[in-house]
């Protein structure tokens, strides 16, 4: 036992040595005290369009981030502005918003960076990853960047890369109520923005990589906040995200309102066995992967949802109408049918705060209506009755919700002839 105690004693010595493997959380990075040597306007003025210039030693600018790449509409660049002007700062890295979010003051040492332009937009760059820590001094956060309210007539080169606000504007006919950009093929898309009461118009350009690319442009009029830019002789605007767009008023000509004044959808433009993809409509899989599909029977095309033979354990899919203008009281009517009843899976909902993009966060209220049920024969249409929507006002969307599963929720539900008209 003597040796055993000794043995234990020796091992106790081993316990004493310390290998540090736990670490304190570092503090929030400190604010910057460095100051600018030149205003952004003066720096931009030192540039001759079409040239590339090395920025002189000792050049420091400071400003507040007016636009970042959080939504993906800006890529590898941010817009920095001071009281005099705004400028595009280019990087070779992505996800800059984590360090340089809108509202953060940055002081940038520009020595030997390159001042250049791209189709009329002056840029500073290109800051490489390793240069971030040596050149960018990160200051306070949460500063408010107020856009300058202007009219289209006022926008000239001095506003390039500044955050501006236009009031009394709307998306032109073909540009209203459509996707901001092409999220499938990842293409950027230009939309036309008109100024009410003038002949002025300019482009709103959005990237296919933007998180809001598949959201719908509003159909009403109102205001837009954006970074002003040019592409050669084209004037164009880049929004930072959808919060920059507030167009809920009637259109400029007083007609149209903020949504369709009537709807009569018979789905005949769809195709058999293809997911419904109607202009202005949303077709969303919440659970599982299946969507509402077009189905054809004797020349009639209708929308159908089913979990029959689904490989996902659960299915929930929504078919949502385009925006509806409820400024005049409306009614809803549609036809529903089912095939091979095993469960009740169809319900109808309305939302007045859905925007075509915010499905999960929007508020949905179920509408009381008649839909096909267990006692109905397969494929026999059941009339919904006239559903009064007068309890709702403003802009609204109607959603047809189907839930099911491949074991005991396999009923196929069908809808057709969705009609919204004045009460």
């Amino acid at each position: 036992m003597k040796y055993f105690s000794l043995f234990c004693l020796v091992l106790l010595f081993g316990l004493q040595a310390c290998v540090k493997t736990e670490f304190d959380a570092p503090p929030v990075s400190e604010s910057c005290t460095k100051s600018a040597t030149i205003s952004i306007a003066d720096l931009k003025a030192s540039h001759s369009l079409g040239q590339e210039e090395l920025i002189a030693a000792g050049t420091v600018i400071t400003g507040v981030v007016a636009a970042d790449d959080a939504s993906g509409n800006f890529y590898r660049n941010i817009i920095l502005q001071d009281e005099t002007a705004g400028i595009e700062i280019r990087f070779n890295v992505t996800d800059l918003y984590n360090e340089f979010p809108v509202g953060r003051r940055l002081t940038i040492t520009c020595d030997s960076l390159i001042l250049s332009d791209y189709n009329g937009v002056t840029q500073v760059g290109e800051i490489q990853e390793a240069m971030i820590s040596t050149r960018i001094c990160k200051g306070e956060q949460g500063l408010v960047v107020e856009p300058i309210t202007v009219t289209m007539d006022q926008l000239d080169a001095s506003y390039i890369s500044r955050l501006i606000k236009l009031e009394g504007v709307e998306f032109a006919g073909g540009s209203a109520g459509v996707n901001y950009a092409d999220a499938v093929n990842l293409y950027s898309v230009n939309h036309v923005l008109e100024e009410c009461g003038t002949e002025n118009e300019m482009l709103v350009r959005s990237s296919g990589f933007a998180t809001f690319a598949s959201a719908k442009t509003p159909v009403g009029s109102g205001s837009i906040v954006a970074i002003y830019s040019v592409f050669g002789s084209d004037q164009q605007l880049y929004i930072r995200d959808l919060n920059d767009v507030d167009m809920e008023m009637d259109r400029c000509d007083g007609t149209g309102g903020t949504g369709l004044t009537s709807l009569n959808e018979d789905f005949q433009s769809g195709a058999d066995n293809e997911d419904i993809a109607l202009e202005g409509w949303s077709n969303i899989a919440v659970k599982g992967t299946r969507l509402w599909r077009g189905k054809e029977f004797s020349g009639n095309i209708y929308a159908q949802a089913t979990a029959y033979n689904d490989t996902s354990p659960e299915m929930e899919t929504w078919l949502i109408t385009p925006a509806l203008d409820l400024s005049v009281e409306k009614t809803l009517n549609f036809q529903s049918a089912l095939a091979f009843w095993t469960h009740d899976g169809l319900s109808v909902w309305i939302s007045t705060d859905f925007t075509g993009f915010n499905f999960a966060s929007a508020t949905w209220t179920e509408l009381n209506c008649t839909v096909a049920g267990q006692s109905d024969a397969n494929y026999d249409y059941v009339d919904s009755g006239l559903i009064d929507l007068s309890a709702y006002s403003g802009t609204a969307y109607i959603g047809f919700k189907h839930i099911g599963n491949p074991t005991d929720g396999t009923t196929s539900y069908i809808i057709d002839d969705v009609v919204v008209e004045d009460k």
Partner: protein
Amino acid sequence: MNKFYSLLLLLFLPILANAQLLLVEGQVLDAETNQPIVGALVSTTIATAVTDAAGSFEMELAADVTKIDLVITADAYLPYSMEVTITNSDVKSLGVISLSADPNAVSSGNQQIPTLVLSSEDLEDSDNRNEDISGILASSRDVFISTSSYTFGALRFRVRGYDSENTTILMNGIPMNELENGRPYWSTWGGLNDVTRNQETDFGLGAIEYTFGGIGGATNIDTRASNQRKQFSVSYAISNRTYRNRLMATYSTGLKPSGWAFSFSGSRRWAQEGYAPGTFYDAWSYFASVDKKFNDNHSLNFTAFGTPNKRGKDGAAVQELNDLAGTNYYNPYWGFQNGEKRNSRVGHSHQPVLMLRHDWNIGEKATLTNTVSYQFGSNGGTALDWYGARDPRPDYYRYLPSGTEPEFADEVANILANDEAARQIDWDYMYNVNYNSLETVYDVDGISGNIVTGLRSKYIVEDRRYDSKELNWSSIYSNPIGDHLTLNAGLSYQVYEGDNYKLVDDLLGGEFYMDINRFVQRDFPDDPAKWQNDLNNPNRILYEGDRFGYDYASHIRKGNAWAQGVFNFRFLDVFLAGEVSQTTFWREGKVQNGLYPESSFGNSEKQEFLNYGVKGGVTYKINSRNFLYVNGGYLTRAPYFRNSYLSPRVRDEVVDGLTSTKIQSVEGGYILRGATIRARATAYWTVFQDASEVMSFFNDEELTITQIVNNVEESFGVTAGFVNYALTDIDSKHQGVELAFDWTVAAGLSLRGVAAVGRYQYTSRPTSVIINESDPGLFDPVKKTVYQQNFFIPGTPQSAYSAGIRYEGKGYWSVNLNANYFDDIYIDFNPNRRTEEAVASLSPESPQFASIIDQERGDAGFTADFFGTKSFRFNDIGLYLTVGVNNIFNNQTIKTGGYEQLRFDFANQDPTTYPARYYYYYGRNYFISLSFRL
């Protein structure tokens, strides 16, 4: 199979034969203390025996011998040899033989061996392909093996170029090779040097008494307390290798008259920073063994041990960063946090082993050993994961001067060269990003209206776990029958369940993380179901300690039966051995993946393999000192779980044409066991066929694949993400010669030389399949032929030479000097670069073509090592000092290996876009140990 059964029959037939035997017996004692020496090896040219707890041995010889040369060796004792003349009797008793302590021996055995320099990567990292088996072989008494493992181990020398799964390591008869990949993990008992010293090691294809073994041979470690040398010892060592300090204590009682024996051992090895920067090391070990000898026929042993350990890893680096850092030991895995070095890749494991062993002497000579064991615990390694933020790894190619806009390359190079923090991970940056990442998540856990707002971490540390549970049973039977035959046989059954998943280890200042796949989210932005790693818990919020990403079990069952007959005749030893095994494995998905809802969840189809092996050999004894031998074998081996599933993390699809590997091997040579010179010369030839391999890598750029379908060329991109890469039909050939001698020139002075000259090459053009985990549309993709025939097997010197001189002084000291030369070290290559697509439209004569295709060979290297010992004795207390210095001339430019990145820049066909990463041999390094024993 018929052939196999008739072979088995052949094997057992000789049992019926009977012949006259001669029994040689004796007892081996310490000359000074008269205590029995346990585990001494008594060898003659035709048989060997090991002394038991009483120091006694018995050896059976064919009765027709008239004269034998007997050599007795034991750790820490001077060898003893005698010539025995046999008169006409059944029993030859040699009485007491006393051995003198070797004044230069430190404590014993492998403590004399300088600790092998292994990069910490070698220890437990299951991802690492360069496991080192030489440490295991260091205790071998074979002159080639013991010498080559001393001096070559540090260069990741693999004997005959074999991977470690070709060597079977057993402990008390239980196979310790990990069932998922076949590799033994020496670290399972790392730090227990004192109590794992009783090893039997057999190299190559020869007869083995305790297992059929792999073509590389086998080792059986005996942990019984009664076989541990009676001692209390403490040692402390300092080093500048993977650890800085080692404290070790062992207490063994030996077999007490009551029939009990106890043995305890414990150690700690630690370093705040090892040789490579940013690599901490903290490894503990504990061991307890209890024996109860009930009578001469029955004894029981219970052994329990474990080695909880944690260490910061060292990653292979691109040369560009090594050059910027001014050292070849640049380690990309660490960075400063609050001014302190923190490693992002922390490996850790603790897999305790419990064993119960029963030894039964049946009748006069037969023995039966039964062991059951249970091993369980955790195994893992951390890494960074991120979402919606830039790549935090400092060696990401776009952050290096070569990946930078040319006009800023100099500035970037300057920053990286002069600011250490800039070329390492920036922990403070990651924390600060997480501090600012306020986000609202909707429909949390798939519940409508369930909203969580908080700091969603953009960067986390994840812990990739491969825990396991394993229940084993083994039975080994040995029976010398008649004069000329010894029969050995064994059975074993193993049940294994691996638990593979990821944990959120550290949210780095954020409040939660989410269980969604960011690559799928990017590829299918409008389809949230697909993003889900766990469809049954969509949009799951994760906190520290939560499982996420993937979660599957690997189930493996393996049953094995083997038998061996060894026939000893006067001039000839012949043996024949056979093995049959049944392996069953399957994958059990614990979560349903959004991309693969049909193939990710539940039990997969079972994969079953019936395998067999046969081997045999003949040794011709020219006389008692000179032998010629030849051995050969053929065996099939079930594919390993790790090399069977295309994307095991997310689904259960197996590689196409999954089949057993076929191995043929022949070796033959000459052995000299003279009084002053020992030597061996061997030639070998081994062929592996139909092996498969699954690799995975993180691809951060788009990889364009071009294929020709119906004569139309189509290109498409494998988008960035986690990519799996499967190779099938891999054949290889290993051939070469091994030469070694150990010559005592004069009293105290000896010379040693060893040469291993091999050529290990691939001999087939395997088929490759690349699959992106986050894009199932790319499944059933292009199969490509990999033109790697005649490429060299990487990661080991194919030629290695060493010459050494040893002098033992009169005052209990010794010095050794070795000079070593290594050549033909090849860098692991990217199969994707050896395809038609990689060189499409290039002229085979162009330098660009060659730069894509050619395999990189490391430079030859020269090193010199010193090893010295000094011992003191004060009454019963022994004090032992050893000093080892490796790479005396501080050669820091020897590449011990490396690998090309698995990405390839198909667009520009430029192999330098993603350069290879290298490991370098440590510069001058030392190990100094002081121990005392009583």
